[in-house]
């Protein structure tokens, strides 16, 4: 092998080493795990928002029913058409109060909980975007580079023709260079996505942990709310079955029907109880992803992160899966 061949081989070796080094930095498992995490978090946030809104609606209904049942005498406050501020475009909020001016209880909107889950969902959305398969970048980049080589070849030909220079063989060389650049670019994009993901997951972890704790508290309160709600109908079903059992005139068929309904209620109640705290799992999975990112996504850390994401997927699947929409009779508050 002469010196030139050795140099060429050395350059190829260096390029290959650089390529391998770049590809070693790109761990698709990390990117995929973050993408999956984002999708699961988004789904959990949507579910919690729906349930929180349902509780707010229940509360509004309860408060309205209470007002009517108590024959509350509602009066208007700050409702004058030309009240102070109207001319400035800032009319006061017209409200209802009890006769004498005492405030009535307002139904909660849980707007801040919704805003936090919304922000977390948006974070998850953009993690998904960033964790996207870099194939689209690669395809677009490769096509551009290839087009660039062809254009440069054409330009070279035109210049040679204009200057009268001898025809060269620039085009094949340019295409070879373009292929190499495209290959490097592909790895660069994959590496860049992974690096950005790691940086963002690490930086966002403290606030995600804090948010997950708060939303886990909401999860707990929601579970308590629905368990108490459902308990009332379970207990009513039990009461009905007991009454029939203690009624000599009741037929076995009637008792059987009442007991079947009771078994179904108890099963639904237990299904509700099996819903674990998803936001706790979301916090844990994010912490493991951040740990994997900090340590360069080592095999052990990645395994832990993937397991955490899978566990999260398990809780999301189990979550409220067995529950049905509210029944017509209004006693089936399973969501």
């Amino acid at each position, binding site marked *: 092998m002469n010196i030139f061949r050795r140099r060429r081989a050395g350059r190829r070796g260096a390029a290959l080493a650089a390529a391998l080094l770049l590809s070693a930095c790109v761990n698709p498992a990390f990117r995929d795990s973050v993408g999956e995490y984002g999708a699961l978090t988004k789904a959990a946030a949507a579910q919690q928002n729906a349930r929180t809104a349902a509780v707010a609606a229940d509360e509004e209904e309860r408060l309205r029913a209470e007002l009517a049942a108590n024959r509350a005498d509602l009066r208007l406050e700050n409702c004058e058409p030309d009240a102070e501020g109207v001319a400035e475009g800032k009319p006061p909020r017209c409200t209802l109060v009890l006769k004498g001016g005492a405030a009535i209880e307002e139904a909660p909107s849980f707007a801040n909980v919704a805003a936090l889950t919304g922000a977390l969902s948006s974070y998850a959305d953009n993690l998904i*975007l*960033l964790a996207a398969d870099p194939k689209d970048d690669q395809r677009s*980049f490769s096509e551009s580079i290839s087009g660039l080589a062809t254009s440069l070849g054409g330009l070279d030909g035109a*210049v040679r023709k204009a200057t009268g220079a001898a025809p060269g063989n620039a085009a094949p060389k340019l295409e070879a260079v373009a292929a190499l650049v495209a290959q490097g670019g592909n790895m660069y994009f994959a590496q860049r996505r992974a690096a950005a993901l790691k940086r*963002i997951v690490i930086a966002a972890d403290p606030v995600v942990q804090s948010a997950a704790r*708060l939303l886990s508290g909401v999860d707990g*309160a929601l579970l308590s709310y629905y368990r108490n709600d459902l308990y009332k109908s379970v207990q009513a079903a039990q009461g009905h079955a007991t009454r029939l059992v203690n009624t000599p005139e009741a037929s076995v068929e009637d008792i059987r029907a009442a007991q079947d309904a009771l078994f179904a209620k108890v099963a639904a109640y237990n299904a509700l109880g099996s819903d674990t705290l998803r936001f706790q799992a979301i916090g844990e999975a994010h912490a493991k992803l951040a740990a994997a990112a900090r340590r360069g996504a080592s095999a052990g850390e990645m395994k832990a992160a993937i397991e955490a994401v899978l566990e999260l997927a398990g809780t999301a699947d189990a979550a409220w899966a067995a529950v049905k929409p509210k029944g017509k009779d209004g006693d089936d508050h399973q969501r």
Partner: protein
Amino acid sequence: MTTSVETLPAWSAADQAQRQAMGAASAILRDADFSDDPSSPYQQAEQACQRLAEAGKRLAVARMKRIDAAIAASGQVAEITAAANKAKKEADLIATATAKVEKLTQVVTAVTQIATKITALPFV
């Protein structure tokens, strides 16, 4: 950063009392003989369970209201939104990088076409 939700002593006491009372009422309801008499232990326990379950719902709502207020005071929504924007910016930057090469290709193609036309002129 950590945002904690302060648990009011009154809420904790009420929560504990509700649990204990529910436990006691459930035990009576499990063992008592059935009776239609409203003053019977069975009917009394049944009513108590219903009322305590309603109280449990009120306590859960109160807890959610506390968390809602804590979130409002924490500024976390803005922090997570900033993290979300950062992720989007990174994704956009990568997309822009490919767009730049595409733009360059267009420029080079245009220059090539002009050069080819110029060389075809008779005075060249």
